[in-house]
């Protein structure tokens, strides 16, 4: 069955790149432009994996992850965080907020899909 991925990123470029890569890999892709919108999408969708950016207006990646983990319906969804470089501090904060894993930007399409496979059955 086609898996659904929710991508949360304020950059249109990044959303488009994720869309292109993930759609090519056979996923159904949902998009949100910040953490708040991401939580809204979760009100009526239950994606198999969430891929989220950290730096976003309104609700950033940390807050978004906490929001997802704090909701019984969604807390079992794997969340991958996009970090620009292997920033240990951000990775650590994201992990403590409940991130499942991370992808280092600029992401490699192969590695992105690989990371998703690593966290989704």
């Amino acid at each position, binding site marked *: 069955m086609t898996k659904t991925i929710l991508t949360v990123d304020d950059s249109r*470029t*990044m959303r488009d790149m994720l869309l292109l890569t993930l759609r090519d890999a056979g996923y159904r892709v949902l998009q949100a432009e910040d953490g708040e919108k991401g939580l*809204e999408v979760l009100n009526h969708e239950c994606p198999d994996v969430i891929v989220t950016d950290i730096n976003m207006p309104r609700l950033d990646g940390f807050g978004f992850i906490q929001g997802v983990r704090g909701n019984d319906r969604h807390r*079992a969804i*794997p*969340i991958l965080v996009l970090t620009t470089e292997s920033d240990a501090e951000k990775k650590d904060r994201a992990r403590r907020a409940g991130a499942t*894993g991370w992808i280092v930007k*600029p992401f490699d399409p192969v590695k992105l899909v690989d990371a998703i496979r*690593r*966290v989704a059955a």
Partner: protein
Amino acid sequence: MDAMMAIRQTFFQECEEQLAELENGLLAMQNGEADAETVNAVFRAVHSIKGGAGAFSLDDLVRFSHIFETTLDAVRSETLAPSPDVLKVLLRASDILADLVRAARDGGTVDAERSDAMAVELAALSGADKPAAEDQSEDMAGFSFQPVQVSFDELDDELPAFAELPETSWTIRFTPKPGLYAKANEAALLLRGLGELGEMIVACDFSTLPLLGELDPEGAYLTFVITLHTRADKAAIEAVFEFVEWDCDLSIEMSADTEPDGQALNLFALRDEMLPRVKEEGLASSVPAMSENQPEDRPDAPQAVDELGAATSGVAPRASLASAPAKAPFPETAASPAPASREGSQTGGQVAGESRMGERRENERRESTQAPAPAATIRVDLDRVDRLIDLVGELVINQAMLAQSVNEAGLTRGAAIGSGLDDLEQLTREIQDSVMAIRAQPVKSVFQRMPRLVREVAAMTGKSVRLVTSGENTEVDKTVIEKLSDPLTHMIRNAIDHGLEAPEARVAAGKAEEGIVHLCAMHRSGRIVIEISDDGAGINRPRVRQIAVDKGLIPADAALTDDEIDNLIFLPGFSTAATLSDISGRGVGMDVVRRSIQALGGRISISSRPGKGSTFTMSLPLTLAILDGMVVTVAGQTLVVPLTAIVETLQPRSVAVHEFGGDTRVIAIRDQFTPLIDVGRELAYRCETADVLASVVILVETEGGVRNALLVDAIQGQRQVVIKSLEANYRHVPGIAAATILGDGRVALILDVEALVASSRIGAPSDSVIPREDRKTPKEIDCYV
């Protein structure tokens, strides 16, 4: 690759938005209006540019934005105070970033020396509060940042590298902690990842698993012992556990023997180790039972078990327990009795789990594959909009022609066709308005480029300048906006270079050292008016006059009013700068500015007060496509007077008209004397003066608020006309703004009221600018159109 090109385009569009955001944010910080979110937004802007640039391997851009970002991060984390000096550097850095973005987009180059120097300056800022040694290394880290190239081949490259290594056996002990499951990681998936590295045997040690009654559904009780036979190195194995290294106990050790025989030995050793314990503790029977029942907060309530299917919580740990042995892609697994004994029932549990997910997905399936659109906007090719506007223009003409034909056929009165035509006219007008609104854009896009210009010119001239803008959201047609940029740029340069005094001179004159340039847009009487004013010294009239005399533009003894002198700067070839400075004197004079404004159907004027400053006022039509006009007849010609200029129309009485010798007449309207312009004579349609009593007077008002009376033979009616450029089809004709096609298919000229008034004015300053003999009579063009 087409898709990548489209994303690349998106990236550069987004960059422009981010650059604007960056600049606005920095300016707000400079004005002390910034809150934490502004600083975040500024940081994010550069961060996003870096992220995208990395994806497209735009190395220069990545390097610079990385250093820039580091500095902004220091501001964000309050280790660097955003003092005015710091902000100046950041603003200049934003300019260089903009150059780098555009260079990357257009394949151009950037002055590397400039950007490198800025990078050093930025690095120095971000390291300012840190110890010197760390500072150094931070800088170097910044410079040596290398973007990762997006490559589809990368993984393929890595695999052969594995194959080079000899096969090795590893023993991996992996004990997940509850945190692993809480973050939605799954032991089963990790094991699967491990299995992809080579052949493996998994054994599960559940010796710490409590009885069902004591089981915490969110707890973690299992240890996996994996024997992996692989060519991969230890780092590759560790990479599998990359996401969970904090949430598990993990040991990876090379097995003593790496021979195939050793593998079998290991396997049996493992079985021997596991089996007795399972038997001893009698867990073999309790485990399958547990796996069928989904866990719950109170597992001792058996009746609640079935409903638990819906609870997603706790599914992850359960599924991982279930699938660990089942998923190990290794036939020998069966040889490991402990996992095998649980396999059947575990798999059953898992299937149930999947079908449940399936149902939910079914219920929630939506038609769209995308989340709700982020904003209710669409991007449309400009060509399509223009085509639509052309078509609507044709529709307007057609509707007018139809109305006229019907009228001529005598059908209108009382006929249903009459009201039908009215409706059609109404609808046509609404369509037109809507279509024009599509093209309308706020002048913001042009205004936004000006702060940078001001900074650059200020730096070059050594003047201190603040730009204040207002009315950025005033909307005007896109074509007008596009053509505004050049004249506006020139006028702002001019205001700083020529208008504002040097700081010392300002202080001496009792003014603030910092000069102010105001840029302001507004709607006024159906046009857009843009004012550029400075608080400089104003026009140096004696000097302007002297230059005009020196250059032979005016006779030495010409008697000119202040206004006339000010307007001399619009004369071709006039330049007040003693030397051709780099800034204003790029071979473009104010005459060129005026011509380009006129080409847009606009006007420009200046007012100046010595010691107080000058104000340039541009007035432009809101659209270049359509005009509400009054159709009039003059000497058998049909002309259109723009409705925006008309105040009222009246039938004159002879007593109201007074002659001032020669050609000049005024008309008294409500006790005010207003100059009377005989349009027929002014445009040289006829030589004799029109009979006032047989004519109609149209009272018009110019932008400056000056009223004049136009004398025409008759009024035909009011109509919306589609503007057809005269310049594009013929050439500029003084007094005529454009042409249009009327309902009967004939061409009518649209009057340029402002120019007409200016040229007819007695001793009007503009009059001296357009020599009378230069004016072409519009009659000539009848044969062309």
